[in-house]
């Protein structure tokens, strides 16, 4: 027999037993008896109280029964358990999936709760560290919850209450499920002696016990020994309709027009008619009925493909707002029933060209659809208030043409010629007659740009730091590079345009357009508002040490402080929904966090998981209780004792 909560009982006993004795002194029903005189009795009682204060509870059957009853209750509180199965002390790592698919309610109340219940049953069934027994060691348990990231809920312990509390503390998430990190963490912890540094061998392998629905993305990257992992599958239904893709985009020609695309997937076997609702700022703008075919199984690979349907909406809205697409058909998983997008107000780029006179560059920029193009000489640029430029940022992009400025206000730069100083780029020498050897044609900056014929009569040899992104290379030096420094973004072209044949190429205008658009997107990139679950909210360029309030699903009244560089990073986007970041004296920033994950939306429980070719079958039956809690019997005993006490009391009073 073991005791799961001996300390609770000890504390309760320490409080209750003296209380009972005290009550016994206070309330005692006495029988009246007439005597000739109480004179001597009073003296005797006084003598007795002086000499032996506890004499009066001697040989008192009522008190004895009450004490026995109390003891039975206290023993019950200690949660004694009679082990019905024998087993030696082992180490177990419970891996509990808390990804989005575990929120499915096909198992009441949810898959995660069912997994937690099974994990608790598993723990309660283990022989623990016996408190009052001679057996010194018991099984040790570690609890890890994993979604996109693994989280150690408790390290190896034989305190079952701690492990149970750790399981209870696991909260649902809406993220992806990646088991690899959890397994790595579990093995790392298993090799250390653990918190209770006994003589447990570090080599002893820990048993991994997985509680999941089997929808795990990185199974093929994990290798386990054949009997290292026990898999407990939760879930039974496949009925789910999910929004697996959603995008809202302003029309390039007419920025007021917004096109919304959404893809719905039906993971059930039957065709489903469902309504799709589009809301803007919580006002329903459109509802469309969609028919989604059922899941189909392709014959060759025997893999099931969900039925899909694509829907597009378009609406006109010139301001910022929150778009929500929601499917209204009831299903098992709710976190993929809606997707959000944050619309920013349409903006046009504002560009400053710093040049001593470059008609080619000026023409190319004017050909691009910019909001504003200003041109100034290098002397005028150096004379500007750079601090004000950093803070106000009146220009989205600054194009430096053969100018190395004295100061670099925080901005997005496109530089031609010698790179600016103080950005870790050194120019050891100048090169001549360089031809293009390679470039990244799929990078947005070089999209549709053909550099095959690019020839530079003279260029700078750029020695770039390691984090720079090289986009195109001459034979001896990088030609185009992307570098982020000091909150600014630099697109470096290490040559003067007029020293190349590029202006005669159609690709040059495309490059200027792409570069301005890309750097302009870098403006928006600083405030990426459409995120996936688990992706952090990052806001740059705030006043240092600013305290901002954050609200969202599962986050209320949170506060977050910017670092000295003026950057806020909030990683707690565990649930889908719209998060808001409130920086004082600035407009409210909104962020949409979406699941949009076809794998997580596919909630069909996998009875078999394949880890790097190693197949692991789910346990045939869920855990059943392998030991017997004794507290109900002790409570019953307490009841019997109470009845007995009642009888004795009545008998005594009747005398």
């Amino acid at each position, binding site marked *: 027999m073991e005791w799961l909560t001996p300390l609770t009982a000890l504390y309760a006993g320490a409080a209750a037993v003296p209380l009972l004795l005290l009550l016994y002194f206070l309330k005692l029903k*006495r029988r009246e008896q007439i005597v*000739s005189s109480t004179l001597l009795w009073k*003296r005797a009682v006084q003598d007795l109280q002086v000499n032996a204060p506890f004499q009066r509870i001697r040989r008192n059957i009522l008190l004895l029964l009450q004490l026995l009853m109390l003891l039975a209750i206290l023993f019950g509180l200690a949660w004694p358990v009679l082990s019905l199965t024998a087993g030696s002390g082992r180490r177990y790592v419970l891996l509990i999936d808390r990804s989005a698919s575990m929120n499915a309610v096909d198992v009441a109340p949810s898959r995660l709760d069912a997994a937690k219940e099974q994990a608790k049953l598993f723990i309660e069934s283990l022989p623990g560290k016996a408190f009052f027994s001679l057996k010194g060691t018991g099984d040790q348990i570690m609890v890890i919850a994993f979604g996109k990231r693994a989280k150690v809920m408790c390290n190896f312990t034989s305190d079952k209450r701690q492990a149970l509390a750790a399981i209870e503390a696991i909260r649902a998430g809406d993220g992806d499920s990646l088991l690899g990190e959890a397994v790595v963490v579990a093995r790392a912890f298993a090799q250390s002696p653990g918190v209770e540094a006994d003589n447990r061998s570090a080599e002893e392998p820990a048993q991994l016990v997985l509680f999941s629905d089997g929808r795990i993305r990185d199974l093929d990257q994990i290798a386990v020994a054949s009997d290292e992992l026990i898999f407990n599958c939760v879930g039974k239904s496949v009925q789910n309709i999910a929004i697996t893709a959603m995008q809202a985009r302003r029309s390039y020609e007419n920025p007021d027009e917004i096109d919304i695309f959404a893809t719905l997937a039906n993971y059930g076997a039957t065709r489903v008619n469902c309504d799709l609702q589009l809301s803007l700022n919580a006002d329903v703008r459109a509802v469309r009925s969609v028919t989604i075919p059922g899941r189909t199984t392709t014959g060759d690979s025997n893999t099931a493909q969900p039925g899909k349907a694509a829907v597009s909406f378009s609406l006109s809205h010139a301001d910022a707002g929150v778009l929500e697409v929601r499917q209204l058909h009831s299903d098992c998983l709710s976190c993929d029933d809606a997707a959000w997008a944050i619309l920013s107000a349409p903006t046009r780029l504002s560009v400053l060209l710093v040049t001593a006179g470059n008609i080619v560059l000026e023409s190319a920029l004017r050909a691009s659809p910019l909001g504003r193009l200003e041109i100034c000489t290098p002397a005028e640029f150096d004379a500007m208030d750079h601090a004000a430029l950093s803070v106000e940022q009146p220009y989205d992009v600054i194009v430096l043409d053969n100018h190395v400025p004295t100061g670099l206000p925080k901005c997005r730069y496109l530089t031609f010629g010698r790179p600016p100083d103080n950005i870790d780029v050194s120019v050891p020498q100048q090169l001549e007659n360089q031809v293009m050897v390679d470039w990244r044609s799929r990078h947005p900056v070089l999209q549709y740009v053909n550099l095959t014929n690019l020839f530079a009569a003279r260029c700078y040899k750029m020695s770039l730091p390691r984090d720079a992104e090289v986009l195109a290379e001459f034979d001896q030096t990088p030609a185009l590079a992307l570098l982020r420094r000091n909150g600014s973004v630099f697109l470096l072209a290490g040559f003067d345009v007029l020293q190349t044949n590029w202006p005669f190429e159609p690709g040059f205008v495309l490059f200027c357009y792409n570069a301005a658009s890309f750097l302009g997107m870098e403006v928006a990139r600083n405030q990426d508002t459409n995120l996936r679950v688990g992706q952090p909210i990052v806001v740059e360029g705030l006043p240092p040490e600013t305290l901002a309030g954050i609200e969202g699903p599962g986050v209320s009244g949170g506060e977050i402080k910017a670092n000295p560089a003026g950057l806020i990073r909030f990683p707690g986007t565990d649930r889908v929904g719209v998060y808001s970041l409130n920086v004082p004296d600035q407009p409210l920033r909104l962020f949409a966090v979406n699941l949009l994950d076809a794998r997580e939306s596919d909630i069909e429980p996998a009875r078999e998981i394949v880890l790097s070719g190693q197949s692991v079958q789910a346990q045939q039956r869920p855990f059943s209780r392998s030991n017997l809690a004794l507290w109900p019997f002790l409570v019953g005993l307490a009841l019997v004792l109470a009845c007995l006490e009642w009888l004795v009391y009545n008998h005594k009073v009747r005398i």
Partner: protein
Amino acid sequence: MNQTKTATARRRITDLLDPNFVARLDSLDVLSRKILQGKLQGERRSKRRGQSVEFADHRPYVVGDDLRFVDWNIYGRLEQLFLKLFLEEQDLTVHIAMDASASMSFGEPSKELFIKKLIAALGYVSLVNNNRVTISSFADGLKTQMANMRGRSYLAQMAEFLLTSQSEGFSNFDNACRQIAAGRLGSGIMIVLSDFFFKEGFDTGLRRLVSRQYDLYVIQVLSAQELSPDLAGDLKLIDVEDADAAEVTISSALIKYYKRNLSAYCNELKDFCTRRGAAYILVNSADSVESLVLNYLRRIRLLR
């Protein structure tokens, strides 16, 4: 006539005492440890010099002395007048004070019955020996009194008094003793019968009864239940006189402390009596009155 009276008295007194026992009492008499002065010339030597047959002393004649008591033989030898002094024999007052408070009805057999029997025996002995007998019953004061009975003719009255006396009311020993001492005349024997469980104490009351004229006998009568209680369990003890309550849980330790206290209390009473020349007797109401009277009281020379 006299025989008839005695028979009636005996019939009545036999309600309390066994006739055989009464017959044995006839041979007894009350004995005072001191020779005490009585009112009438009686059958008893007194300290007072007077007219009797027992010579005591001589003293020189002074003018006015009764010439009948001059010792003429001495005058013949010495030619000086001396008076012969005799011990005068006087009657003895036997004053019996009985506690008639409610506590006396307690016990099995009751203390009340026991002391009534004892008083009947002592009264019988006193009356048949022509002693002056006064019986007082007291509780919170003097309740009733049969005073100055003398001779067998009072046996019936005494029996009547005893049989009609009721033990009730609460006790005030000091007050009772003050009244008894105030109404007491002459000299003799004072016998006090009680359980002496007085919450205000017995010493001030008894101190009033101690006097040179009276030979004091203190008889403490306790029931067997008081000497060795047979209680058990958690009890609320109620005092039969003043309804005072004491909550006790009977245990061997408590009984031990009770007996120790009882013993100390009785010893205190005994010491008090001894220091003041009084005789102290502790009796159990379950004991037989016959053996007490015929053996113990004779042994301590209250009776002869």
